[in-house]
C-alpha cells in the first residue's frame, strides 16, 4: 500500500518536473552579415552596404544605432513601467 509519505514525494516530484520545458526559447543569433543576401541592403544598411561602405565585417561592431533610437519618452511605448 502506498504510504502518505510516498504520495507526498510523488506529488512534489511531479510538480517540480512539470516546470521543466516551459520557458521561452533562446533566440538564434543573427546569421553572418552579407549585403548580398539582404533584400534592399543598400537602403536598409547604407553604412554597411551603401556605395560609400568600407569592407564588410559583419555584425554588431559595425552597426550604429541611430541617433533617434532610444528616446526615453516615446509617446505610448513601454519604458520603465512595462512589466
Amino acid at each position, binding site marked *: 500500500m502506498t504510504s502518505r509519505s510516498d504520495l507526498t514525494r510523488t506529488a512534489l516530484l511531479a510538480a517540480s518536473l512539470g516546470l521543466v520545458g516551459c520557458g521561452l526559447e533562446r533566440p538564434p543569433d543573427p546569421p553572418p552579415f552579407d549585403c548580398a543576401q539582404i533584400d534592399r541592403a543598400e537602403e536598409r*544598411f547604407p553604412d554597411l552596404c551603401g556605395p560609400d561602405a568600407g569592407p564588410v565585417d559583419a555584425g554588431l561592431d559595425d*552597426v550604429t544605432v541611430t541617433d533617434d533610437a532610444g528616446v526615453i519618452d516615446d509617446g505610448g*511605448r513601454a519604458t520603465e513601467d512595462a512589466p
Partner: protein
Amino acid sequence: MMRQTWLALVLWMGLGGALARAQESSLPTPEAPAGEAPRDPDDADTARDEDAELESLLQESVVSTAARSAQRSSDAPATSYTISARELEMFGIRTVDEALSYLGVGFYITRPRDYETGIDVGVSGLLQRDGGRHILVMVDGHIMNSQDTGTVSPHEGLGVPLEAIDYVEVMLGAGSVAYGSNAMVAVINVVTRHASRGTQIHGVAELGLASPSGYDGQPGGGLPQERVGLRYRLGVGLSTAFRLFGSPADLTVRGEWVEDINNSYGITPTAQDDFSLRPGETAWGGTATHTMTAPAAIARLRVGDFQLRVLANQYTRGIPLSGAFVDPWSRELRESLRGELRHDASLSPEVSLGTRFYADYTRFSERTSYRLDYWCVPGQVDGCNFELGSAGRSAGLEQVLRVDWTLDGRFASTLGYDVRGRDMTARPADYYDVITGEPSLVQATPYVHRVTVLGAVFAQQIVRPIDWLTLNLGARLDVDSSFGARVSPRAAAVLTPLDHTSIRASYAEAFRTPTSYELGQYDPTYQISALSLRPEVVRTVELEWQQGIDWVTFSLRGFASFYEDFIASREATEAEHAAAVARGEVSPTSMAEFFVRNDNLASLRTFGGTASVSMRPTPGLTLAGSFMLADTRAGDDRIPIMPLWSGNARIAYELSPNGASFALAAIFAGSRIAYSSFSLVRQVELGEQLDLRLTFTSPLDFVPGLHVRASVSYSLNGRLPYLINGPIDAYPDAPPLYTPVTSPLFGFVGLRYDLPL
C-alpha cells in the same frame, strides 16, 4: 544556479517526507471553529459557513487575512472587510476589480488598456503604472502575482470564474509581515466556493451589449465603421461531496469563457508626424475597436485533510491605441497554470499545522507595431513588429504552525516559513521587420534567464492581557537571492472600550522584491539591464475608529505612508553603458546618452484617510459607501492619475432574503492629473468622474435554481486620465487627447442555474 535549483528540490523532497511522517502521527480531527484553535485563513471550506453564522451573531465581518487566523474585523491588526458573492451578484459585478471599485474601501482603479498596463490599481493614495505590483492578490491563499514580473491583473485576466467566488476579503495597508513581497498597500484574497453536500451542476450565460461612442467619449457619435459591442460569458460547474478512502471528500470544478467584441470608440485623428502611420494613412486615429478573450478554470479536490487545487487561465486583449492605430499585431497575452497541494492538521486542541506545496507557471507577452524606423533596430526602415515576453516558473513550500495556548485567542502564536524557487526566461525586446518578418540582422535578440531563491520565516504573537485590549506583534524575515534580506515588522494595538466600539493603532513595514524581469530586462535600442536593485519599502502608521450603533456601522481611518526606493527608469551613465556593451547587450557604437536603466529612485509620501458607512434601516434595505481623501506627493509634486478624493456609494433593496433585488451603485472621483509617457507634454487635469450601475436580480420561481440578473452601466465622463497626445511647447494650443472609457454605456442580462442532482 543549476546546483542551487537541485539543492532546493532535494530540500523540498526531504521536507515533504518529514511532513508526511508528521501527518501520519497527527490527529485527523477536522478544523476547529473560529475563535478556538486557529485555522488556516486561506481555506474557504466549512469555515465560511461557520463564519457566516458567527457574522450574523456578531453583526460584523469575520476576517482572517490580516493575522492569518480568524477574528472579528474590529479585532484585526489592519483595516479589513469582505465582499460577499451575494453582493457581487446584487450589484452587477463582473470582475474583482469592479467589486473593489464599487463595493470596496480605499481603492481607485482605472482600465487604460494601453501598452503599459491593462489596469492600474490605486490603493490608499498610491497609484503607479506598475501592473499591480504593489498589491498582493491571492486565490484561496495562493499568490496570483506573477513570480517573474510581480504583476497581477484583478480583472478578467485574474482567471477565477465569477460564480466560483464565495467572497473577497481585503486587508488595507502593509501586509508583508504575513505574506512577504508585493503586499505594500493591500492584500486581496479571493476565496472560492466548495461543495458542502450532495451534487450540483451549475451553469451561467450572460449577454451584454455596449453602445458605440464618439470622439467626445459619449455614447453614439455616428462615426464611420462604428459597431455595437457584444460581450458574452458562459460558465459551467460541478460540485459534489462524497466519501473517498473512508474520508469525507468533495470536488468542485468551474470553468468560464468571457469574450468581449468591444464597441467602437472614437479617437480624434491627428496628423502629427511622430505617430505610426501605415502606407496610405494620412492621420492617426478614427474609429477604434478591440477584442478581449478570457477563458478560466478552477478545480479543487479535498479528501480528508488534503486538498489539491488547480487554476488555469488565458487572457488576450487587443491594444489598438499604441504604435500603429488598431493594428492586429498589437495585443497583450497572459497565461497561467497554478497548482497547490495542501494539508491541514490539528495536532491537538491548541495546535494546528498547515502545509502548502505550490507550483506556478505564468507567461506574459505584449506586442505593438511601429512604422517609424527610429523605434526599431537598424535595418528595419519600414518599421517593425515589436514583442516583449517572459515565462515564469516557481515552486515552493510553506508551513504555518498555530498555537492557541489558552483556547480563547487571548494568547495565540503563529510561526511559519516559506521557501520558494523561481525561474524566469524572458525575451524583452524582439524586433521583427514589418515587411519581411525577419528579426534583427545585426543585433542579437535579447534573452534573459534568471533563477532566484527565496527563504522566509515569520512569527506573530497575539496577546489580550485585558478584555478591552488586544496586541498583535509580528515580523517576517525574507532572504531573497534577488536582493538580500529584509525584515517586515508590524505592531498593532486594538482597544474595544465598549461593545461595537473599536480603536486601532498600528505601525507596519512592507516591501516589494525587484523582480527578475526588472533586473534583467534590456533593449538594444534604449535600455540596459539593471542587474542589481534594492527592494521598494513602505512604512505606514494608521489609526482607525470603528463604531456600530444599532443599524449603522462606520469606520474612520487615517494613515501616513512613506515609500522609498521605488524602481523607475533613469539615464544610464557612460560606465554603465560600457559595461552593457561588454555584456553584449548593446552595440559598441551606440551612444550612452540615449540609454536608460532601472534604478531605485523615487520617494513618495501619502497622508490620507478613508471613511466608510453601512446602514440597514429596515429589513432588506442597505445603504453604504466609502470616501477616500489622500494626498500623495513625490517631493512637492502630486502624482498623476490618482485623484485627491474618490469613493463609492450604493443602495440596494431585497424584497426577501436572497430574493429579488434592485441595486444602484456609483463610483465617483475628483479631478486627476493626466498621465503622459511623453515628458514634454504640459500637465493637464481631467475633470471629475461618475460611473453608475443599476442592477436587478431575481430567482425565477417557475424553475427552481434559476436566477436572472440584468444590469446597465453609464460613465458620465467618458475619458480616462491618460494622454495619447497633448500640448507641448511647440504646440501649446494642442487639445489634450485622452484615452477613452472604451464602453461608456453598456448593459447585460444573464441567467444562472444551480441544479441539484
